[in-house]
């Protein structure tokens, strides 16, 4: 929650809360002054002038309530938009040092899904949680003080009842409803997974048993969910009963206490209806808390996770002082071993390799031999657990991160294509490249025709969905070719291409003047220009392919 509070613009937040409190108090005052006005008029004062102050107040509160509410909504939405923008920028800044290591693979996918959910949970935290809580405290206190001023005993009535409706009832409903709410959420989630499984495996389900298993499973899941929702509805109905009924207790208590005073001649009769209606109006102070309570737990947890993320140590860090300058662009892993966190066996062990500047090296070997891990090391996406990686004779860990990254252009196996234009994707490689240069590179990777269809400014679709897997691979390659880096690191560039296109890409890479390190499983595409390095999974006896 601290993450949220830090980003709240203080002045504007205070203004929003003050306006909301004013709205609630205006409503209560409108009711109270109306009651007083009608009572006073019925007492037939000697002149209409006596009623004038009350008439003016009634009119003023009627206007101010609507006006305050309008301004309050604008201010609080403005604060929310500012808050969300700051939170998101912060999140992104926090993830930059953790990238790329923490964001790749299955774990990376889970992290992204969770961040998206947390972002959603924190989005409404001001409008639906913080502001209603602050308003309840401020407006509620004001109501208690005013009631006590009318009649000494009356202050306790709104105090107790507001506490009941604002704290006790929502807390009870949240607790009593929690098992049902959890059951509903679990059933929904399970059903979502079921449906996704059914849709993905429709051919197999329909071909196997005509979908009977899937239908029976869906029916059972839906019945589970309905039962859980019925249980949740019972709790909600009790909460409705209390929310609607409890204010009557305040009204009656006000009549008994103030009415006693009026009958005894201690209290002005004008205050009877005014106090009763004012107490009634004060219940609006806690109106927003019923919905706030269930949100609180989720928002707190989301806030904690976002904080924890900022505290996660990154996989690679910038060196403290400036290290030695690299001499040239030879790269060389020296006796390198990598064991992934939580893995029982190393992904790579005792690797020695020298790649001279301008050399073309193909890394081949079975799945699990650590081919992609070598690229991650050269890129310094992660550090070796043993040994070191040299660039121009200098340990990568002693060079500034920016410098290491500027030295290489990386093409992952599934290039990450943001939902932007074709040109926008390409200019990630070189922001200064002109259209002619972009077209030339697209032609080099065999995307000239597709680019002509789509246009350089054409949108590539969400996550590049308007492109085929092969086209995304070529786009990733084009982006890397544009990048002015001496070292090209390419992971399986031919996996999604047919043989002719794959051969053309490999041949183009062989013609590159700069160093190329390419991971591939298709050794038949390589000619004498390539130095083939065969990797074996650690633990495989040498000599057995």
């Amino acid at each position: 929650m601290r993450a949220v509070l830090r980003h709240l613009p203080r002045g504007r937040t205070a203004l929003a809360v003050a306006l909301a409190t004013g709205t609630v108090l205006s409503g209560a005052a409108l009711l109270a002054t109306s009651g007083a006005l009608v009572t006073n008029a019925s007492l037939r004062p000697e002149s209409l002038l006596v009623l004038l102050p009350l008439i003016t107040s009634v009119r003023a509160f009627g206007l101010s309530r609507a006006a305050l509410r309008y301004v309050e909504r604008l201010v609080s939405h403005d604060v929310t938009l500012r808050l969300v923008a700051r939170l998101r920028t912060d999140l992104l800044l926090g993830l930059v040092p953790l990238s790329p290591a923490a964001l790749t693979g299955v774990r990376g996918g889970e992290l992204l899904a969770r961040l998206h959910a947390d972002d959603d949970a924190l989005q409404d935290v001001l409008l639906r949680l913080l502001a209603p809580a602050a308003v309840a405290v401020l407006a509620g206190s004001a109501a208690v003080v005013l009631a006590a001023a009318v009649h000494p005993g009356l202050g306790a009535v709104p105090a107790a009842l507001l506490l009941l409706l604002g704290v006790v009832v929502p807390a009870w409903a949240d607790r009593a409803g929690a098992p049902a709410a959890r059951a509903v959420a679990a059933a929904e989630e399970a059903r979502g997974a079921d449906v996704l499984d059914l849709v993905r495996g429709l051919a197999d389900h329909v071909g196997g048993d005509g979908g009977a298993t899937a239908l029976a499973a869906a029916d059972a899941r839906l019945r589970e969910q309905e039962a859980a929702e019925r249980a949740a509805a019972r709790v909600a109905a009790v909460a409705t009963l209390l929310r609607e009924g409890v204010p009557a207790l305040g009204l009656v208590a006000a009549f008994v206490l103030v009415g006693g005073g009026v009958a005894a001649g201690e209290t002005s009769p004008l205050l009877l209806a005014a106090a009763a209606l004012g107490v009634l109006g004060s219940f609006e102070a806690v109106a927003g808390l019923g919905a706030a309570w269930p949100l609180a737990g989720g928002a707190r947890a989301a806030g904690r996770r976002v904080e924890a993320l900022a505290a996660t140590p990154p996989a690679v860090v910038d060196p403290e002082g400036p290290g030695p300058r690299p001499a040239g662009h030879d790269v060389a892993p020296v006796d390198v071993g990598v064991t992934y966190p939580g893995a029982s066996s190393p992904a790579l062990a005792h690797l020695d390799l020298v790649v001279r500047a301008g050399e073309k090296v193909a890394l081949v070997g079975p799945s699990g031999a650590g081919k992609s891990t070598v690229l991650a090391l050269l890129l310094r996406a992660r550090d070796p657990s043993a040994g070191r990686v040299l660039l121009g004779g200098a340990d990568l860990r002693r060079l500034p991160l920016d410098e290491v990254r500027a030295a290489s252009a990386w093409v992952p196996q599934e290039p990450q294509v943001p939902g932007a234009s074709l040109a926008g994707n390409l200019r990630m490689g070189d922001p200064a490249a002109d259209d002619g240069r972009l077209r030339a590179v697209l032609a080099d990777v065999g995307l000239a025709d597709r680019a002509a269809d789509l246009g350089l400014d054409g949108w590539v679709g969400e996550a590049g969905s308007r492109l085929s897997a092969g086209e995304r691979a070529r786009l990733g390659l084009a982006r890397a070719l544009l990048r002015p880096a001496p070292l090209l690191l390419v992971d399986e560039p031919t996996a999604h291409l047919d043989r002719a296109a794959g051969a053309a890409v490999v041949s183009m890479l062989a013609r590159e003047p700069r160093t190329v390190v390419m991971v591939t499983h298709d050794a038949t595409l390589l000619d004498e220009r390539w130095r083939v390095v065969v990797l074996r999974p650690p633990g495989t006896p040498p000599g057995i392919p």
Partner: protein
Amino acid sequence: MPGRRLLARARTGRGGADDAGTAAVTARPEVRRLRAACTAVAVLVAALVVLQWALVARVVEAVVGAGRSPAALAVPLAGALAAWWARAGLLALRDLLAARTSARVRREVGLDVVRTLVRLGPAADARAGELATTATAGVRLLDGLVARYVPGRTHATVVPLLLAAAVLVLDPPTALVLVPTGVLVVVFLWLVGLRAQGAAARQWEGLGRLGALLTDALRVLPTVVTYGRAPATVRWLADVAEGYRVATLRVLRAAFLSGFVLELGATLSTALVAMTVGVRLFEGGLGLECALLVLLLAPEFFAPLRALGADRHAALEGRPAAERIAALLALPGPPSGDVPVPAGVPEVRLEGVGVRRDGRDVLQGVDLVLPPGSRTALVGPSGAGKTTPVRLVLGYGEPGTGRVLVGGTPLPRLRRADWWAAVAHVPERPYLLPGTVADNVRLGRPDADDEQVSTALVRAGLTEVVAALPQGVRTRVGEDGATLSGGERLRLALARAFLQDTPLVVLDEPTSQLDPATEAVVLAAVADLARGRTLLTVTHRSAPTALHDRVVRLRPDGVLVDGAVAQAVP
């Protein structure tokens, strides 16, 4: 009453009746029953409101006017309290009924959606994500429509009308203040307000879309960081958010006006009632009890209208969901006839088949015969649309021209479910359900015994792989087979096909993700599977073509030519 019609229009927000999707939900018998119950509750609530405030007014009159002590007024006070709690109970009951009805409707609609998915069959898989979203999130959004909008709309129609009638009887001059203000507010809302509110809701939903933008930025962050573009991306995202904030506030300034008008109408007319009855009291034309009663009824007149704003937002979300669900339920399934699939291994024949997509011929004039027991490899450059003939043979789609014949019968005349059961299709990335290895094999034939399952695993060359798993065939494969390698997934799908024992086997790019050693193992299993069946394989790799007795090539212009070419087999 024209006011009532205006009210109804204002509620739908587009000056018309509910659309077909919403109507399909609100016309369900349980929703009709809910509406009837809500109407009854609304009538009783209106009566109790009048009773409760009448008793309160009597108490005030007795204390202020007659100088009596509240202790002597226990009966009217208890009566007011009872009426108040009775009203609270009715509202709680209404909420309970609405929530239960909503739960029931969503269960039934949810099941209908799943039934439809099964009816549509694999033809639907191209839209998998969209269908799954409609079936889950879409059904969830119906809650707003049934549990909130239906009760809210009924309440806002009945209660203000009855209260207006009560005020008209009690004190006609006050009714002259209330009714015109009410109508004015509704008219004004209809003219500008609720539309703007819709725009505001849409704009606010844009915040969620901005969140998607953030997710997109995070997804590509590894590339962004390694390319040194992180600062630019952060700046860009901040700029987008700021631009969005400014645009949103501009929309909200206008949109919140409708709420302002509603609020102003309600508070000002309450103030107006207080002032007019005050003056008339002063002049002696009115008693305190009656004056207080009509004053207390004024906010009650507006309360349901004010509540409607929030309920309408729920409906706003539910309405497109209802529409999407109705469209999904109405999707025509693939044509299915009543001719049984011929026994044995039938001949499959494509005659003059043409398919156009995006203004391009994917297939044109394709004639392809798959004689019983033949093994055909379909090759061609990537992007040439090699998967299209497979979809046609499987009956997942219809050709634009020409026809597909099975044993001489046009495919649409066959019993569709039977034909699907007669074809084993192994896609490029086979689907694995999140159960055990055995569950996944058994999906091919749910009634297969353990013996048959293990035979299928042996024939797919998985014996050693399964033996190495911690619990053998009872090992869970994880979410979509996360624990298996590409080659193992494929062989598991082949084991499924062995068990399914169908006359026709269709393989889609069976080895594209595999290294040469694994490819050899998979192809051996494929050769075994193909015995005694018709095999159709789509591939862009050369190795699989060796075990076929015929290679056909699809040219980029959609024409099928016979024979292997140097490009496909080196």
